[in-house]
């Protein structure tokens, strides 16, 4: 990694943008009539180049989110000269190959769109950001933007919440631009908790305009702008046992794990739960 620029003073508006691109092939083939991956890429590439133009010291890192793996496909600060965003294309192809080779042999057709590994790419982004933090006192202000469309995988709930909380603690906002059909509860929560912006564009062929208007501003300037706010956030949790989304359930009083059904023992921390108070007449007769 190239050393940070010590001689120049980093002003408030220098940003490090981590872009998480959803590369779930099932998702992209299902959305094909409305929006294609190539159009999406062209919008995103133009957006990335414009970020690099905004400030000479801006850095952009792109992570692709597949269904079996995640990987870095672009780092603007690698190499001696700041690279253009198009150089991510060959790496992206390689990544797709790799991802394909990792998937199992059976052909799951008609199985619905699976979820991509959002938790993995969030963790990778946060690790990169931590490395930047430790590189010295002068570093750009990092933020994460998720361009996501696949549905939420309830199995990833715990991992995603953990990454969200660590992002909150490191003061890294997570912006979300949802290009799928449904809202994503995980990303809504992520943006709400970390103070980022959540947006679901109405018109996908105007994606570049959305990106440039809402997501291009650096963190310092956001204090002066009014960015779109979602009307509500879906805070429902998923239970730890079946990964279903629930809004009423049981909680372990020791470790706060959530269960949808009454359990004898907490699977996370192992504490044993007491018996529920039963109200059958035989018991109360005994008490009398």
């Amino acid at each position: 990694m190239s050393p940070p620029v010590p001689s120049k003073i980093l002003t408030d508006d220098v940003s490090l943008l981590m872009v998480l691109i959803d590369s779930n092939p099932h998702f992209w083939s299902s959305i094909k009539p409305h929006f294609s991956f190539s159009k999406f890429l062209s919008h995103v590439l133009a957006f990335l180049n414009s970020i690099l133009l905004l400030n000479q010291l801006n850095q952009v890192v792109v992570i692709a989110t597949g269904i079996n793996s995640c990987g870095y496909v672009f780092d603007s600060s690698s190499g001696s000269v700041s690279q253009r965003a198009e150089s991510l294309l060959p790496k992206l192809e390689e990544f797709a190959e790799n991802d394909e080779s990792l998937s199992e042999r059976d052909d799951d057709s008609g199985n619905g769109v699976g979820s991509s590994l959002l938790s993995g790419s969030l963790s990778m982004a946060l690790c990169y950001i931590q490395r930047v933090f430790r590189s010295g006192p002068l570093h750009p202000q990092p933020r994460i933007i998720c361009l996501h469309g696949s549905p939420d995988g309830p199995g990833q709930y715990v991992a995603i919440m953990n990454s969200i909380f660590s992002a909150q603690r490191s003061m890294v906002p997570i912006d979300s631009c949802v290009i799928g059909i449904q809202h994503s509860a995980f990303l809504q929560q992520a943006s709400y908790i970390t103070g980022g912006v959540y947006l679901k564009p109405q018109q996908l062929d105007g994606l570049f305009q959305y990106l440039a208007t809402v997501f291009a501003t650096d963190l310092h300037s956001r204090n002066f702008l009014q960015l779109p706010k979602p009307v509500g956030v879906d805070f429902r949790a998923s239970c730890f046992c079946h990964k279903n989304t629930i809004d009423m359930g049981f909680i372990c009083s020791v470790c706060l794990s959530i269960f949808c059904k009454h359990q004898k023992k907490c699977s996370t921390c192992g504490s044993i739960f007491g018996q529920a108070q039963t109200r059958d007449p035989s018991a109360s007769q005994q008490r009398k």
Partner: protein
Amino acid sequence: MADKQQQVVVKRARHKSSVKDPGTPGVLKLTKDRFTFMPNDPSSPVKHNVEFRTIKGHKFTKDGTKQALLNLTQDQGGNYIFEFENFPDRNVCKDFVASAIALSGEAGRTVPEKSAVPIQDEQLSAAEMERRIKLLQEDSDLQKLHKQFVIGGILSEAEFWATRKKLLEQNYSRRPKQRVALKNDMWSTKPLADGQSNRVTFNLTPEIILQIFAEKPAVRQAYLNFVPNKMTEKEFWTKYSRAEYLHSTKNVIAAAAEAAEDEELAVFLKQDDMLVNEARKKIRQVDPTLDMEADEGDDYMHLPIQDHGLPRNDNKDVLDSQYEPYRRSFSQHLNQHAAVVLQGRVIDVELGDTRSVAEALARTKHAELAKDASDVYLDKERLERISRMTEIEDLQAPRDPAVAPLSIKDPRDYFDSQQANAFSTLGDTVSGAKQLKCSVSTREAYCSLKECISEIKFQGLTEPTINSEVAFKVLNGLAQNISSNKYHLGRNPNESVLDSLPKITREELLLHWSSIQELLKHFWSSYPITTKYLLTKATKLKDAMSQIYPKLQEIKESVQSDLRHQVSLLVQPMLQALDAAFAHYDADVQNRSARSGERPNGF
């Protein structure tokens, strides 16, 4: 205090119409809510029977003056002056009157309908009663609840206060414990010199002794060492006074001479080493990053006798060095005195016993010293701060990245946003319920992905990236979205639905809400029903709740149409809670009747 308080006080007194009036002798009888005065002479017209409710204040003469007077003042300007035979009598009456006035004043204000104090079926001390009344007075919401339930007979006094013990204690301990601070005037070194004889008199009270010990640690140490081994307390103070006298004459040579003779006196005349050490330590703790000029020059203990700026036009004569230790500097004394006064009272010991005072002070000083010595962490923090200020970049080790502190968010955010979300999820699931079906095999999917990528590689980005009309539409849409959100959610994200309601409705809703909380709390706590008492209690509570139920419905209907939906959302959980309670009650009643049907001897 409460158990010593009498219910009735009877004292001899004279009633005077003015201070100068000799007064009518008689008997003054004080009870909790009134006082009566009966003159000794039955034919005299001076008879009084006044309720404390009408008495607003009381004044009295100081102890030790010629007359022991107590003056009870009324609202309209009338007053009753009583003269007592002695001060203790008067003080007893004064205290009783004070508490009686307080009690009647509060009772009058909180329960205007009933002049008696609220219903009690338990023995309560007067202090407890006072606390409750005071709490009710301060918190009007609590007062409303109390009136509604306890006076209305639904809950008993004990039950109402059972859950509020913490509030009562808090209130009690919140009474300010003000203590008298140290006197600011320095003990005058000019003793009362009797002009005729050669005697000089010093007055030492325990207060003054405390101040001396606080200001002059050497004297304190000397006291602990000398008394009672070497000399008695009286001798000690005599010697000290002699030393003070010598200082006041400003005759340094005489002081040196006497000090040479009397070893103990020398302790008082020399500079105070302990004080010097303390000052040095304080200087060391000064933070150089904050105090730009803090350095040895601020060490006022070690300044040359030129007294740091104070012009001294006399005493410039240079004395022999042997006399230096006996010179005392006024500014040093003043600074030390000021520091001690600002510090306030550090110890809590009774001032009577001089030795214990000295020991207590010594203990606190030791504790401070020990704390400073062991405060390595504080030192480390200071060093770190200093090094951060004087940063040399390449010599610094990498610092841990800054982290955000834990922030507990306002739960109202969560609940308010959930309301809106309830709609948005409904809307989405209806329209977006069509799950995306991927009818393509994995391999094909990957293929198409890779094709897309290579398409761009060869064709390059499309030109223009985005159609201008589309861009325009997007911008418009965004702008509208933002402004409509602002309109609906309000400028202030903390504003809630309640604020947009008319005031009366809001008050009613909040009142109903708090009453429902209270009732439900008691209702659920009385289950499972094991005694008859609990059964009657549950029934009473259920009746009260069923009275509130239609009131809530009314509120829902009475609101304007645009707010109606939000109000019904607010009221909904209250109704649900009440419904749950009713259902439980009915189920329980059914169970009970079924069981009593089985057992012929009944409950």
